[in-house]
């Protein structure tokens, strides 16, 4: 029995001694130091073993470089090696023939041994050309910089400039553009097709701190209920316009030295200005023009498990504008909407989401959505009389009131396959949307969604 305990103790000691060495590895990325010339950083993971170590030996490292105008290869000598456990980087200080600004460079790790470690070549990360630091008196010429290599654009790239315009909605992000198609087939009726195109695309530039973009919400046949003997496309609600978006982060005071950082409930505010948006319904020849500044309050999410999260974003907006055209008849009923002119509404609401994500099967540390349940609620509070159209038991009534108009939407999105541009979607809608606020009475649809995110 004592011998078994001794063997067990030896095994535990051996196991405890190994991980520090075996878990260490170079990640294959390196960056130039932007403020201390002639230094580069090599990324690693794990922990460096104490004592003599080939990774901390300057002679194990060389930096090779060339410039575009002259393909001859140069080598820079590594004078010293300094590990930084906090940021997990090894700092290489160069001397001699150091790379000038604009050079392409690679780091060679080739230790002499023993102990013997496999050599490794690490390409320098491309750096912005205009990012060269300001020249300072007494410092050597230019730091290490790189000429970005022309590579094929890929959604896997970490550089936004190397991505195509659209990528799958990955990493737990909702898509920027969606096209949902579904149909309902019932006995004795022709199929009812529904189509929804939603999107918000942003331009990279800014105007007074706001990012300009275009937002659209195009819904067809959302209001039809079976049995309907029609397959005509009937655009119900179309909203389109130029929008300006600005995101304001909350900058809390950092904690005192030695104190742990604190989390805060309010993380930021997203401001959106529509300049202006058009609301129109072609089936009823009604249209309005609306200016709608809005604010979304970004609250810190709750993460019940490692691969899921719950978000809750309150929403506040003002819609001000004017009715441009009003119909004389709605669903064959003569109406008098002569006092429907000015539009002023307060909008309150919230967006919530429960999302599960899973690690990317490409093994690059990314994450993809597997399941999401999102809910959205809006209540519009008109200051002036606006129409409200209700059809109950095949009887249509049109009121001109300032009653609150509610809108509830819930979506279930499931993307089980690897082609993340496509997802199965279930949608529930209830309530009234401008311009005529026709009541949509508990609509359920199931369909396929083609979705993509704009590369940013």
């Amino acid at each position, binding site marked *: 029995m004592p011998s078994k305990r001794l063997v067990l103790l030896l095994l535990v000691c051996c196991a405890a001694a190994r991980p520090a060495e075996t878990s260490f590895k170079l990640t294959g*990325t390196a*960056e*130039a*130091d*932007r*403020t*201390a010339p002639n230094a580069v*950083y090599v*990324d*690693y*993971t*794990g922990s460096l073993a104490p004592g003599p170590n080939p990774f901390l030996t300057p002679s194990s490292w060389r930096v090779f470089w060339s410039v575009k105008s002259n393909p001859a290869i140069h080598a820079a000598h590594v004078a010293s090696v300094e590990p*930084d*456990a*906090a*940021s*997990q*980087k090894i700092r290489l200080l160069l001397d001699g023939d150091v790379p000038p600004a604009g050079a392409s460079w690679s780091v060679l790790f080739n230790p002499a041994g023993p102990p013997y470690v496999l050599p490794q070549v690490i390409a320098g*990360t491309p*750096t*912005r050309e*205009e*990012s*060269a*630091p300001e020249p300072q008196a007494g410092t050597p010429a230019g730091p290490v910089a790189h000429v970005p290599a022309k590579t094929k654009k890929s959604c896997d790239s*970490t550089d*936004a400039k190397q991505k195509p315009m659209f990528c799958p909605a*990955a*990493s*737990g*992000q*909702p898509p*920027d553009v969606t096209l949902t198609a579904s149909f309902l087939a019932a006995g004795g009726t022709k199929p009812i097709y529904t189509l929804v195109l939603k999107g918000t695309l942003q331009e*990279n530039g800014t105007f007074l701190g706001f990012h300009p973009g275009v937002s659209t919400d195009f819904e067809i046949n959302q209001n039809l209920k079976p049995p309907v003997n029609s397959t005509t496309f009937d655009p119900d609600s179309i909203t389109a316009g130029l929008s300006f978006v600005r*995101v*304001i*982060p909350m*900058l809390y005071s950092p904690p005192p030295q030695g104190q742990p*950082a*604190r*989390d*805060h409930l309010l*993380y*930021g505010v*997203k401001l959106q200005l529509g300049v202006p948006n058009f609301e129109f319904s072609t089936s009823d020849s009604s249209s309005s023009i609306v200016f709608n500044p809005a604010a*979304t309050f*970004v609250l*810190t*999410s709750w*993460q019940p498990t490692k691969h899921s*999260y719950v*978000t809750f974003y309150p929403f506040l907006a003002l819609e001000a504008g004017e009715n441009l055209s009003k119909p004389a008849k709605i669903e064959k009923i003569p109406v008098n909407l002569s006092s429907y002119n000015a539009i002023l509404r307060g909008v309150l609401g919230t967006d919530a989401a429960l*999302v599960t*994500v899973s690690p*990317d099967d490409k093994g690059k*540390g*990314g*994450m993809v959505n597997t399941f999401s349940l999102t809910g959205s609620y809006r209540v519009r509070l008109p200051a002036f009389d606006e129409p409200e159209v209700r059809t109950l038991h095949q009887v249509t009534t049109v009121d001109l009131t300032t009653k609150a108009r509610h809108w509830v939407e819930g979506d279930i999105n499931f993307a089980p396959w690897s082609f993340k541009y496509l997802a199965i979607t279930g949608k529930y809608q209830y309530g009234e949307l401008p311009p005529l606020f026709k009541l949509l009475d508990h609509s359920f649809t199931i369909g396929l969604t083609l979705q993509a*995110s704009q590369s*940013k």
Partner: protein
Amino acid sequence: MADKPALTPDFCLHVVVNSTPKPSQWKPPADTPSTKTLFDLGVVDALTSSVFAAGVKARIFPWHIDDSDVTSAPGTTLQAAANSVQNNAF
């Protein structure tokens, strides 16, 4: 004009961590920047990603960086995000 702090890996990592919604979830040395992701620190969707990038831009002043140059996808490791700051700030 304020003096520019040295754009060291530690500084960039500090900016990245403090720009996330949950900086208290960063517990070195048990946590490492190559394994901890922005998702772990509360950057979970497009909206929090954009607030994170705007926060990095504000905190790195007097250095400048474009929002689009900050790697801010939730699956990004802290190290990759800090590298994007170090490489693209000017």
